[in-house]
């Protein structure tokens, strides 16, 4: 009877030494607590918690596959969560205001004892879902303010006989060329398969402007805009001297310039 009542926990950390450390500290602070599983990444942690249904899960924040915050989101409400971290300044300030507990590595025995005491008091209650707090946490970890993360910053292209990643800041313009798209930097040109239509959606619209159905130019690379002898607008590109035609429907981009 007592055995089935013994509280249980799962420890998740990608570093074995750290799992051992938490386990050892918990043995000292809370001998009745049974460690029913150890996970080396977030995905394993979620699977273990679902199969073994522990009362508590200790989650390292930085883990492969799925980080500790994502794992907690997936497990919301199914176990009491204690986050473990060596250094995550943003996260720690968030924990200080939340219902979630956290431990700093290396785990200090006195601090572990306090955490265990809090957990004992909470064991009878259902774990709280922490949706809002976790959403805030994951945003803080992603770098605070709403940073545009999903724009293309690198383009994968064949150069010579290898494939390399070209930073978009090196690219002067993209130009559709039959089946391929030509990528021009100040030093070389390369071909990619991604069509202009897709690039328009994926690149940062403040970094690259479409000036023609077949041309995207980096705004910073525009040297000047002039008109050719037929009265059409033409963009001269810095560092290459190449002239790119602006089609009528995109002419408004340079109207105020």
């Amino acid at each position, binding site marked *: 009877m007592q055995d089935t009542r013994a509280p249980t926990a799962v420890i998740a950390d990608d570093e074995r*030494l750290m799992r051992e450390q938490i386990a050892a500290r918990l043995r000292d602070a809370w001998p009745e607590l049974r460690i029913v599983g150890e996970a080396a990444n977030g995905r394993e942690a979620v699977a273990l918690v679902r199969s073994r249904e522990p009362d508590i899960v200790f989650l390292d924040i930085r883990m*492969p596959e799925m980080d500790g915050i994502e794992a907690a989101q997936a497990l919301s409400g199914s176990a009491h969560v204690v986050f473990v971290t*060596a250094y995550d300044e943003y996260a720690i300030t968030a924990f200080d205001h939340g219902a979630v507990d956290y431990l700093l*590595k*290396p785990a200090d025995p006195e601090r572990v004892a306090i955490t265990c005491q809090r957990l004992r008091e909470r064991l009878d209650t259902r774990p709280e879902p922490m949706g809002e707090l976790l959403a805030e946490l994951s945003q803080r970890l992603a770098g605070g303010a709403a940073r545009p993360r*999903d724009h293309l*910053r*690198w383009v994968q292209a064949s150069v010579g006989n290898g494939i390399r*990643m070209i930073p978009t800041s090196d690219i002067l313009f993209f130009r559709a060329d039959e089946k391929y798209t030509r990528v021009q930097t100040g030093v070389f040109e390369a071909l990619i398969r991604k069509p202009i239509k897709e690039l328009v959606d994926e690149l940062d619209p403040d970094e690259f402007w479409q000036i023609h159905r077949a041309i995207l130019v980096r705004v910073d690379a525009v040297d000047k805009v002039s008109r050719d002898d037929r009265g059409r607008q033409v963009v001269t590109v810095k560092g290459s001297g190449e002239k790119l035609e602006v089609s009528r429907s995109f002419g408004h981009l340079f109207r105020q310039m």
Partner: protein
Amino acid sequence: MNTGNEEMPLSDTTKQNLRELRDAAVELWWRFFDWLAVVPWKTLAIVSVLMLVLGGILQSPQPFFILIVASFIIKAVAGGKRRADLTASQAIQRADTEQHERAILEAHLAALQAQIEPHFLFNTLASIDQLILTDPPRASRMQQSLIRYLRSAMPKMRDGARPTLGQQVDLSRAFLEIMAVRMDDRLRTALHVPAGLQSAVFPSMMLQTLVENAIRHGLEPKAVGGLLSIQAEVADGKLAVHVRDTGVGFAPQSAAGVGLANIRERLKVLYNGRAELVIGVPADGGTCATITVPYEIAAADAA
């Protein structure tokens, strides 16, 4: 000779005055000369006509006429040289300032790159803390690696010597020893740096930035981990250093990382187009970052 002692001070003052006058005249002459050198011919012609008119009014046009002819000759003969001298000295001054600015910029960027990631430091200390209880000899070895890493990662203020590839590899080796303990069998490493290239000049902290990126963005996010290899070679007078990992590969959306942008900026400042950083995508996965710099041997007195 007959002047008395009392008059000597007066004579000194006069001499002084004369010297000042002469200096002023010389100064005036050079100003006139500079003005002549740069003034457009058209302006000189207009001024000449005005001078002739002035000469006519004063009824002694001859000295003015001589002055005008002399001006034209001086401008024609010496103006070009003088102007070239001025431009040259300005250019030298500008180059000095530029070089100075580049040196400051490089020092600033190098210091930024040398920042030690707190996450790494705290995690390593936590691991040492655990090993002290379970495996003290291993704890001691890990701590020694940390000391070697910190010693070589600290920006060197007094040391004017240029960093060598050997030093940079030692630094990364200490770092990798630590990470190998922490990551267990998830991290395997291979170093292929020929002994002959140890003394090649290689900028500080760049190799380390690539190694840290390979671990943090390539291998750590991969559950099974993988291999990190460092390889150096010389070809066509250029030293190429490759850092390759078999990790999750490079995400085109990743915000380029401050580290890589910093390396590019520093290579530009240090080598002015003769060095580059290339991020390659090997056919069998992972990432291969290569820094290529001109091959130079560090001066022997550096030690």
